[in-house]
């Protein structure tokens, strides 16, 4: 690179402008591809955009922290967007009320399935104790998962990464499960993806319909609460039961 170009690169790679612009460009490009493939589940825009950004950061030798200095303006909007989930929840309230009983039962069984199956599969394949405890809360939103994993002996950073991967896996895989299990009801589709794949699943549910999004938001919130309250005593009990 010529000296001027190097100087420009040094400026840009340290300025918040680059991270912010790259994030928006990656999202638009990913969404364009998603639409071009006729909304194919494997062309999930969150997964594609993350893959693009990871490649750009790697090629440009840009540190994630300096990228996030710019991207944080987008990240910040997660707060008000989470509050805004109250509006679809309010709109769907009449249907939510009639399904209250089944929703609570599905919440408890789905949440236990997420925790116990992650533990069982990981333990069978020889995951370490720290990995198992970081896996256990992977279906809930990042701040809760990190806070729950640490006192159990998990690694908060690993828990955060596993939460993100779970969200992407849920968003990509759920459409196949909808078809395979023949689930047409948007309320059921949304509730399941929100429970298992938190906010990224909820974002995917809003692409189905407002009803799916509202049920996903409810499941995400309730599973976050349930996991924060139950994991601190389920995991020690499970380990004692298995004599580990």
């Amino acid at each position, binding site marked *: 690179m010529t000296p001027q170009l190097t100087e420009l690169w040094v400026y840009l790679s340290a300025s918040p402008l680059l991270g912010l612009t790259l*994030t928006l460009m990656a*999202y638009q490009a990913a969404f364009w591809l998603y639409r071009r493939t006729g909304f194919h589940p494997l062309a999930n825009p*969150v997964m594609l*955009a*993350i893959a693009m*950004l*990871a490649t750009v*950061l790697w090629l440009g030798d840009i540190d*994630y922290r300096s*990228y996030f200095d710019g991207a944080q303006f*987008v*990240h910040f909007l997660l*707060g*008000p*967007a*989470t*509050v*805004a*989930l109250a*509006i679809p929840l309010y709109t769907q*309230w009449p249907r939510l009320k009639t*399904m209250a009983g*089944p929703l609570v039962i599905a919440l408890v*069984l*789905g949440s236990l*399935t*997420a925790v116990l*199956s*992650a533990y069982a*599969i*990981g333990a069978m*394949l020889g*995951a*370490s104790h720290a*990995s198992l405890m970081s*896996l256990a809360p*992977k279906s809930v*939103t990042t701040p*809760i998962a990190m806070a*729950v994993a640490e006192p159990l002996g998990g690694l908060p*950073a*690993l828990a*955060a990464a*596993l939460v*993100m991967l779970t*969200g992407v*896996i849920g968003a990509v*895989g759920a459409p196949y499960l*909808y078809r395979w299990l023949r*689930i047409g*009801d948007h309320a*059921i*589709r949304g509730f*399941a993806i929100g429970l298992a*794949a938190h906010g*990224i699943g909820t974002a*995917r549910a*809003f692409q189905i319909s407002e009803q799916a999004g509202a049920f996903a938001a409810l499941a995400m*919130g309730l599973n*976050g609460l349930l996991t924060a309250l139950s994991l601190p005593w389920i995991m020690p009990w499970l380990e004692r039961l298995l004599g580990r």
Partner: protein
Amino acid sequence: MISALTLLLAFQLAGEVIARGLGLQVPGPVIGMALLFGALLLRGGPGEDLRQTADKLLQHLSLLFIPAGTGIVMYGELIAAEWVPLTAALLGSTFLAIGVTMLVLKALSKRPKTGQSTQP
């Protein structure tokens, strides 16, 4: 739009204050959502401005997860060390959780409510 955003941020702020003040593990925005939901029930629904702003934000909810999601690049080594059990556990348990939740809901909501079916 600005007044709706201000309202959303005010509820988030109230949520953060409550979460930190009471030392709760629940994130502030989630409490803010619950507070706003309560306010909507009392008030009888959102105004047009709030509804439109919420729609816009939620339509692009996927975008908002991209900065945090890209953070995976920092943990490549942690995941690579045990990638077989971690990948298998993530795939297996995420699909199982979605499947079990849907089948339970389908089975429970199919059953007609005896009390309601007789009413006109």
